[in-house]
């Protein structure tokens, strides 16, 4: 393990930190001996996948872990060890010398307290008088970029967007000019364009004040964007530590190498390159063979609510998925991309326009439509909710046989089991999985089971709604590989919804960019994601951080130049 020699004494020193949790199944060692330093004015990124112990490490600095945690080792913030402090000492440390930014801005603020008061509370906790604290809170809100801060400081959190709430949380964290800020996945819950703004803000405010920043993230792009050094954690241990230029470019530890190799990368944006061949490519792409398109949407509109409360989530969408084509739909939260996916297979009614699946209209409830639906598979985002917790994997995957015995050729129990085993093999799950229950599987395994279930009746159309978004990168890579393989083997048309441009680039033939319910640009994947023409698509593409620090510096300049 390499420890970067800091020039000045470190703001945060962690030595051999170990954290265990007592749980029903025995003791779980979450952190198994972590040592690291963060120097003033520097940004250290702590990266790793879920369960690596990175958040536990961060939380233990302020002793914010649940009571079941047992912590040993030493932590130094300046001259104090939080692990040895009494309650009063801990309170002066929290918010005073160390500020904290959390992952979920939607829930991190008290819903029944005005935001100004929540900022002021941090100041009052550390001895600032009430009137002065209120005044300073307004200044802080201004500083983090809340427009009209004086008036809005009396507003409640629900009146702010996710990005603005995260700004408020940052204002709370920096209120008492702490020497250390800990940010735990501060942008993970935010859209990519908002993420870029928040990262800029954090860097400016923390480093600008000469404070140290400990940034916890799973996103290599975020690391490359703002960190100076990086610590890679795996199973509770730091496996690699060094300056980002070295670690990201020439990783030494095999785990770091695996992790970096799994990150899908969006090629450099080439905003000036105008591809002449666009029109030609687009016209040639959809299959000229006899098979009907997997999906054809014409003027599709979807409304939520009725009467005066009606809200149009999808507006006039034209989209075609060819017989063996993978079409990616990207967009930020609220863009209507998931609604579009659901409407495409009739889970939500179209209020206008038409949806044609495999050459037939998907309307009504009759036998014809049920038979048509037998040829549609669907995979959702949430690995926890995608399988019935009371059914075994085998039962879930075989369920389509029972729903459509005629389509399946009326297989008997033995035949069903044989075919389920084949499907599980196709998604690279071990044969023993067949009798397991969903809660016994990991997230990635569950998503592969969901994929197997969607493929049971050899669909002509597969809808994949953020199928990898809840997964760690290495697991995401496995699921994407499996999807690519089964696509080659089974040959279906696929509508692939994702917020992650790099993932879509890795898998899709064509891409559509959605914003506020409309498609603003569509075309071949490389063209749309590398040299987009629509202004919003350009903003989206340049906001995606690259895990290559040099490339990321270029993107940052591009982005700042554009704004």
């Amino acid at each position, binding site marked *: 393990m390499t420890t970067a020699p800091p020039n000045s004494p470190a703001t945060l020193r962690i030595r051999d930190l170990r954290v265990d949790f007592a749980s029903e199944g025995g003791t779980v060692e979450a952190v198994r001996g972590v040592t690291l330093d963060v120097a003033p004015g520097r940004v250290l990124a702590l990266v790793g996948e879920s369960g690596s112990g990175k958040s536990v490490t961060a939380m233990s600095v302020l002793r*914010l872990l649940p009571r079941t945690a047992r912590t040993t080792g030493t932590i130094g913030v300046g001259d104090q060890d939080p692990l040895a402090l009494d309650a009063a000492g801990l309170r002066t440390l*929290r918010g005073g010398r160390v500020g904290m930014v959390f992952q979920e801005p939607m829930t991190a603020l*008290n819903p029944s307290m005005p935001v100004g008061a929540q900022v002021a509370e941090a100041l009052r906790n550390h001895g600032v008088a009430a009137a002065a604290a209120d005044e300073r809170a307004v200044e802080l809100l201004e500083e983090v970029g809340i427009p009209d801060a004086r008036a809005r400081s009396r507003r*409640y959190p629900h009146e702010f967007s996710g990005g603005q709430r995260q700004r408020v949380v940052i204002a709370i964290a920096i209120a008492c000019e702490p020497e250390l800020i800990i940010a735990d996945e501060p942008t993970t819950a935010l859209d990519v364009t908002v993420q870029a703004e928040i990262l800029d803000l954090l860097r400016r405010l923390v480093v600008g004040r000469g404070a140290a920043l400990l940034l916890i993230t799973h996103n290599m792009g975020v690391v490359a964007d703002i960190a100076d050094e990086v610590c890679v954690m795996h199973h509770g241990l730091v496996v690699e530590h060094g300056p980002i230029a070295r670690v990201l470019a020439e990783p030494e530890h095999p785990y770091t190498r695996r992790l970096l190799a799994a990150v899908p990368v969006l090629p450099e944006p080439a905003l000036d390159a105008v591809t002449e061949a666009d029109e030609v490519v687009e016209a040639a792409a959809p299959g000229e063979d006899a098979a009907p398109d997997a999906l054809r949407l014409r003027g599709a509109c979807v409304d939520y609510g009725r009467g005066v409360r009606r809200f149009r989530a999808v507006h006039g969408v034209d989209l075609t998925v060819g017989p063996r084509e993978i079409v990616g739909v990207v967009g930020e939260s609220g863009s209507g991309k998931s609604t579009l996916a659901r409407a495409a297979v009739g889970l939500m009614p179209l209020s206008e326009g038409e949806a044609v699946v495999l050459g037939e209209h998907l309307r009504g409830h009759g036998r014809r439509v049920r038979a048509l639906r037998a040829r549609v598979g669907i995979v959702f985002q949430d690995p926890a909710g995608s399988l019935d917790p009371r059914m075994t994997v085998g039962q879930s995957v075989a369920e389509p046989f029972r729903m459509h015995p005629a389509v399946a050729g009326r297989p008997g129990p033995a035949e069903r089991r044989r075919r389920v085993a084949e499907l599980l093999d196709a998604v690279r799950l071990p044969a023993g999985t067949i009798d397991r229950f969903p809660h016994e599987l990991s997230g990635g395994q569950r998503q592969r089971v969901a994929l197997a279930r969607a493929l049971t009746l050899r669909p002509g159309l597969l809808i994949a709604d953020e199928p990898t978004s809840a997964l760690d990168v290495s697991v995401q890579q496995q699921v994407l590989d499996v999807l690519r393989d089964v696509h080659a083997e089974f040959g279906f048309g696929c509508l692939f919804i994702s917020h992650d441009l790099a993932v879509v680039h890795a898998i899709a033939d064509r891409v559509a960019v959605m914003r506020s319910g409309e498609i603003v640009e569509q075309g071949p994947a490389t063209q749309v994601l590398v040299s987009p023409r629509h202004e919003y698509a350009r903003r989206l593409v340049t906001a995606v951080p690259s895990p290559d620090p040099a490339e990321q510096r270029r993107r940052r300049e591009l982005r700042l130049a554009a704004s």
Partner: protein
Amino acid sequence: MTTTTRGWARSPLLHYVLRRTGQALLVVLLVTVVVFLLLQALPGGPARGVLGQTATPEQIAAFNAANGFDDPLPQQYLAFLDRLLHGDLGTSYVMNMPVADAIGERLPKTLLLTVLSLVVAVAVALPLGVRQAARRNSAFDYSTTTLAVVLYSTPSFFLGLLLVIVFSQWLGVLPALAPQGQTVAEVLAEPKALVLPVLTGSLVAVATFSRYARSSTIDNLAEDYVRTARAKGTSERAVLRRHVVRNSLTPVIAMLGYQVPVVFGGALVVEQLFNYPGMGLLFWSSAQASDFPVLLGCVLVIAVATVAGSLLADLTQAAVDPRTRGGLR
């Protein structure tokens, strides 16, 4: 969030108030249907009730014809509804007075008893529940939550009886009979006699409310905003007082509105046990005497109070919560 800007729909809160009030009126209407049908189901119908057990079939037929009881049911129902709207709940078989007057005389005394019990219960239960949650899994928490389940499982007549045996028979410090005054003022003139009825009524409610307050506070203590508050150096006491209590007790207080039927049910037993001349006792003695107009009149009054209570609870909650105050859902 997005709504069109047409007229009244512009305020989602107003929209909610109107929708919720409409629902409440619908429920009251449904209750009147139930009561009307019960009236029809009475042995011998309304005529037997008015004319007494000795009425001949001829007398009943004549009475029915004269009072429109031969009309088709929907028409009778409309007439019934019309009478209700004019405050006419019928006439008691036994007391020879209008039901509305009989209830009007007793209702204030029942309200006095129930409001006192609720105030006592809330004053004890909310701090208790918050304390239990703050010291979750401590000996204090275990013993008080177990006690709450025992109290909840104890029928109030048994609890009241035990209190009477202890405080009035053994210790002789409190009377076993509730105040017998005719008016609220006369009742209040005997505060000592009110102690046991109020105590009996509030103990079971303490068990219910503290359970709610405890679990609501526990839920809120697990929220992210509590972690944010701790991370900025807020003391545990201030976390509870400034952040958690408000968020966790708002729904509990609003829940009081949903407790109206429970409260009236409790009053029925307490009044019977301590012979307190309120609506509960009126109801009980009318049940003994098969005085159906009074029984159904009471049911109607309680049902309207219940609907009003839960309406009030929902609206209060919507008005207090900053998330709904500005724009609803």
